[in-house]
């Protein structure tokens, strides 16, 4: 009966979302406070029932209730407890339930932590979130019910995709969804403000912390996904420009533009039209991502839904959201026209240029992601848009964006001159050129690496210069300021890590026999053979490779080749990590008696990629807890 409770809880949540849309709206329209103020309790009630449904499904996994089709299809008795719990979002129906659950968490958080937002605005925000929630609950219940029963339950369930039986994948989807779905909050703020016709200071100020938090989660989610792909897929790569990766990266680019655009709108009351469009664009892209992953139009490790009915539902929902939002935008366009003048060289212009570059970068990724799909859909042939396209188009757009990012913090609001900036920073720039020359002589002559080193040093210098300036002026260090520094430094750390590992990494795909040794980047990899083993839900082969530097033993690496119940082989790389480099070994196939194909990678600074990601997220969280968002409610 517990399963039916979970199912009915979802039905109740859907009904409550209908009441959330109708009753507080009547209250707002007729000026009846008791009704409009019901929005919060309705959000709580809806959140509660969605949580009940979520945990009922989780308990079905933990107790091996194979009478539930979704459980039988994605879990079995041998699966470790952690993966039983994470199997809840291991396939389509459950991950949709997670989507709805995360949305209810965001809605509840907005209702609780928004005491400083005017009540009427807050209630309308909750109603808009209720509309989004209604759409997804309807989708869940009518096309993707996770509580479907089997008339004859099997004795043993099937298997969770072995790729997903990993800690990284247990935490990556919830984090990514927190970011993805979190973009519904800035969207709701904008739509509520547009409907009210009050695009005032309140919505601008209170949208930013929510945008920052969702951006931080999105960053962590993408970073975790990249880390997982690196160690789990056995190719040593950290980003593949996979369409589903792109689906999460596009909202990230727009959200990055949004938080900067919001800072200009919030401070100077300008770029409101742009901010509104970015908020709508960010959420629309997260819906587009959901469509790409759920509709089955993509083939990828992420794409587990192949039901056209589901795809059609999301597509219709996507059109309603985008079309409806743009219609509301057009309706209120006259309210957005008032703006203060911007001079050509100012902080505002710098941030706007950065915004334009980010949006252009997003459009280049969108084109590379959708173009092959459109051609395929129209039967105009199959083409593959891969890494060369993205590297050729994306990097030249992002390079100036990073340079602008490093200069804008020194530029003044309203109006400034290039001459002043140059005279202010010329010594630092000269110092950086000297350091690049030193790096050219002692480290590498690779131009990409030298540019990355230059950028990194420049960002480091920019952080130090700004810090010293603040200390000298004896002004208060706000969390927003610290957050900006940490996030910008994170970008530099990421850029350096990504460039160095891509340009200077070494990869060898070789045959190794017992006792054989290979020298890579000054390390000797000695092959000690392979042994068989058996675990609860898989069996496999484990290699043994000793790594030496000169005569000193550095580590012993044990790459694995696993075979799960489904027979699917899985490569488990063995990694010796450090901040300066990773030594990475993956076991291939057995070739002839005693010899195996082995992939060995030397990955300099690869950890900096994820360190940079975490720093960016941390910076965003710092900025979100800035003092100005916690001032007393009484005016």
């Amino acid at each position, binding site marked *: 009966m517990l399963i039916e409770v979970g199912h009915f809880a979802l039905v109740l949540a859907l009904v409550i979302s209908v009441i959330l849309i109708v009753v507080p709206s009547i209250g707002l329209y007729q000026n009846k406070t008791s009704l409009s103020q019901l929005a919060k309790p309705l959000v709580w009630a809806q959140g509660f029932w969605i949580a009940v449904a979520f945990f009922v499904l989780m308990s079905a996994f933990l107790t091996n209730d194979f009478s539930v089709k979704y459980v039988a299809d994605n879990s079995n008795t041998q699966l470790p407890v952690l993966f039983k719990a994470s199997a809840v979002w291991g396939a389509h129906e459950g991950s949709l339930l997670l989507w709805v659950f995360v949305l209810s968490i965001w809605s509840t958080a907005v209702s609780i932590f928004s005491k400083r937002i005017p009540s009427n605005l807050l209630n309308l925000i909750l109603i808009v979130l209720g509309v989004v929630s209604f759409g997804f609950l309807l989708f869940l219940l009518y096309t993707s019910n996770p509580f*479907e029963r089997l008339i004859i339950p099997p004795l043993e369930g099937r298997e969770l995709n072995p790729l997903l039986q990993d800690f990284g994948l247990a935490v990556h989807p919830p984090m990514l969804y927190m970011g993805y779905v979190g973009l519904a909050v800035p969207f709701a703020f904008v739509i509520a403000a547009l409907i009210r016709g009050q695009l005032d200071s309140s919505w601008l100020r209170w949208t930013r912390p929510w945008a920052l938090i969702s951006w931080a989660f999105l960053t962590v989610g993408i970073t975790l996904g990249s880390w997982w792909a690196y160690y789990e897929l056995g190719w040593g790569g950290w980003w593949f420009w996979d369409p589903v990766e792109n689906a999460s990266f596009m909202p990230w680019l727009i959200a990055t533009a949004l938080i900067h655009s919001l800072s200009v709108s919030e401070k100077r009351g300008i770029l409101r039209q742009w901010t509104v469009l970015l908020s709508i664009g960010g959420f629309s892209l997260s819906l587009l991502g959901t469509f790409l992953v759920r509709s089955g139009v993509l083939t990828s490790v992420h794409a587990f839904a192949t039901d056209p009915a589901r795809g059609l539902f999301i597509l219709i929902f996507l059109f309603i959201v985008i079309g409806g939002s743009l219609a509301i935008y057009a309706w209120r366009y006259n309210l957005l026209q008032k703006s203060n003048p911007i001079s050509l060289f100012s902080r505002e212009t710098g941030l706007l240029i950065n915004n334009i570059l980010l949006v252009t970068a997003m459009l280049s990724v969108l084109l590379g992601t959708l173009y092959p799909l459109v051609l395929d859909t129209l039967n105009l042939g199959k083409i593959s848009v891969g890494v060369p396209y993205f590297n050729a188009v994306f990097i030249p757009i992002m390079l100036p964006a990073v340079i602008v990012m490093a200069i804008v913090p020194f530029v003044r609001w*309203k109006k400034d001159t290039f001459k002043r900036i140059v005279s202010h920073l010329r010594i630092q720039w000269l110092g950086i050129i000297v350091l690049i020359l030193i790096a050219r002589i002692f480290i590498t002559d690779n131009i990409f690496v030298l540019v990355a080193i230059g950028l990194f040093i420049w960002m480091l210098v920019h952080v130090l210069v700004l810090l010293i300036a603040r200390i000298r002026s004896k002004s208060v260090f706000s969390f927003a300021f610290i957050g900006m520094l940490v996030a910008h430094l994170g970008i530099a750390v990421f850029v350096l890590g990504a460039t160095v590992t891509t340009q200077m990494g070494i990869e060898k795909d070789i045959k190794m026999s017992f006792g054989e040794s290979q020298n890579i980047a000054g390390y000797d990899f000695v092959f000690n053979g392979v042994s068989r083993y058996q675990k609860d839900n898989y069996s496999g082969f484990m290699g043994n490779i000793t790594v030496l530097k000169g005569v000193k033993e550095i580590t012993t690496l044990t790459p694995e080749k696993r075979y799960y119940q489904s027979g699917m082989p899985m490569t488990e790389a063995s990694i010796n990590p450090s901040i300066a480099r990773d030594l990475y070994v993956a076991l291939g196939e057995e070739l002839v008696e005693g010899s195996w194909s082995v992939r060995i990678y030397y990955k300099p600074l690869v950890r900096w990629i994820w360190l940079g990601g975490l720093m960016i997220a941390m910076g965003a969280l710092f900025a979100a807890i800035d003092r100005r968002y916690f001032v007393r409610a009484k005016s």
Partner: protein
Amino acid sequence: MIFSWQIVLMIVLSITFLSWFLYRPIKESLSDDDSNIRINKQRQNELISDRSIGLIEEQYFKEAEGEIIDTLASELKSNESEKLEIKPMRWSLSIALLIAILSLSLYSQLAPKIVPSSFSQSTDSLSMTESLDALKEYLIDNPEDFSAWKMLGMTQVAIGDLDDSINSFENAFKINPDDIDLLLQYSSAIAAKQAGEFLGRPQELIKKALTLDPQSIQVLYFAGIVAAHQSDFDVAKEFWEKALYLMPDSHPDRSIIEEAVETILNLQVK
């Protein structure tokens, strides 16, 4: 439809919770004007702070300060309209009715469907819970209807009510112990109750089914499961291979049995 106490409790809880807030509404936090005044004051302070660290020149500071004042002036509203009271009882009842009717009708529509058997007069498909009620009522007047007892047992399995389903299957078994489908359903229900264990009564029932129809694909599949549970992999493989031989290539269950054979082969290899 089943009005189980859990579902009724969930509806009552929701209604009570929301009604509470209709009688004692949450106080409004801030008005738009209060919020805008405060935020623009903050903006003014931030501007002063920006000036002190050289992020804005003095001549533009005045201009920016003027813009903040202009913004505030345009945002302030002349007066707030009067708030109207509601009658909480009327709204509580409306919400209660809305929740009860909408949730139950939606659930009855979304609950898993089964096709009604010959005892039903209706030609429309019913929801599982509706079928259950109808079946129980029907069986009070027709306790000897084998199909009705079997259908009741299957419906109870579908909603997870294993104890009652076993009783219903037992009643059907007393009427007709030679129905192969019943024997398989009955054994599955008992096995599910025994945490997936087919030993004992389920094994006996499947053995009986195998005697009655040794060529039935379903029976062979279940016989294989029983053998596999006793670690008799060769026998299990034999049953499943026979089932595969008997079923056409397009049979929807073919892949399930093939997978089972593959699992056995893997286990034997290990």
